[in-house]
């Protein structure tokens, strides 16, 4: 399968990390920003980093932005520029566009432009922090709908060495374990001990829980909250 090519427009905090993360995963990344410093900060890590005014259609065309599979528009401070750039790259023919929004209205406008996804990084980070404060045992949280979520919960001490069916997680709490994240120790190339994580998707009821396991659990928000409170 050919590598997907990404263009990241706007290299503020969010765009900077998106560009670096994609590059670290081996993707081809073109990073664009109007600030020379922001471009310089990613230049050594991405395939190509260019300083230019991304609201200029000719500049985007000259860079061949239309040849990219995915565009990430990460411009929050200047809403007008964000919308203009999204419209331009859509017209240039980029099929998948993801854009950052900073306000609900900004998000609504971007959404109405028919792009693949609108993200609210600050709002999402705030919700995650709030969730982790309210339920400190929950490691990660993905809201599926207003009523259902997937959460990651470390196993309680009493669950270790029990089979999944022997725990009360499904029978009493009505939650479904969809995967188990298990730590696997190893010695790394430098001779240091370390561990990696193995994901056991769709575990069977007979699977035994090990110490340090993290359960990936699907359920209604009410049931997740009551399970969390019972621990």
């Amino acid at each position: 399968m050919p590598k997907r090519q990404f263009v990241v427009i706007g290299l503020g905090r969010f765009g900077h990390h998106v560009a670096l993360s994609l590059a670290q995963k081996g993707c081809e990344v073109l990073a664009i920003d109007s600030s020379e410093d922001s471009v310089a900060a990613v230049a050594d890590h991405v395939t190509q980093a260019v300083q230019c005014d991304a609201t200029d259609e000719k500049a985007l065309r000259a860079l061949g932005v239309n040849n990219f599979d995915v565009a990430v528009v990460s411009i929050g401070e200047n809403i007008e520029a964000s919308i203009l750039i999204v419209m331009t790259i859509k017209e240039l023919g980029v099929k998948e566009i993801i854009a950052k929004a900073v306000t609900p209205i900004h998000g609504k406008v971007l959404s109405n432009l028919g792009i693949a996804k609108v993200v609210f990084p600050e709002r999402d980070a705030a919700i995650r922090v709030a969730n982790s404060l309210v339920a400190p045992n929950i490691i990660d949280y993905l809201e599926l709908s207003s009523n259902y979520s997937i959460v990651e919960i470390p196993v309680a001490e009493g669950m270790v060495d029990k089979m999944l069916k022997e725990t009360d997680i499904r029978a009493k709490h009505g939650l479904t374990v969809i995967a188990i994240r298990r730590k696997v120790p190893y010695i790394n190339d430098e001779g240091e001990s370390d561990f990696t994580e193995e994901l056991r998707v769709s575990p069977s009821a007979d699977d035994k829980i090990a110490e340090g396991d993290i359960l990936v659990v699907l359920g209604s928000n009410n049931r997740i909250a009551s399970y969390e409170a019972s621990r």
Partner: protein
Amino acid sequence: MLKNIPNGNAVELDPKKSAEYVELGEFYFINQKWDKAIETLQKALEYDPKNPEGYYNLGVIFEARNKKPDAKEMFEKALHHKPEHKAAAEHLRRLVGA
């Protein structure tokens, strides 16, 4: 030189013995004998309280058991005794999320 340890016993400081206990602790860790590994690494630190590998390995075990505050403390101690300990710095960075 003798060093008093919390349980009232005293052991003679011996960095070589400490290194041997770290190796044994790593062996228990690889075999997922977590409690035995912790006990052995604590022994390693009794013989050399400045052994960064003892703290680092304890940090890895605590992290693997989801005991993040304890893991963080151990990685910080490893770095205190060996600031250039790359693996400890990387684990600490991951835990703190910086």
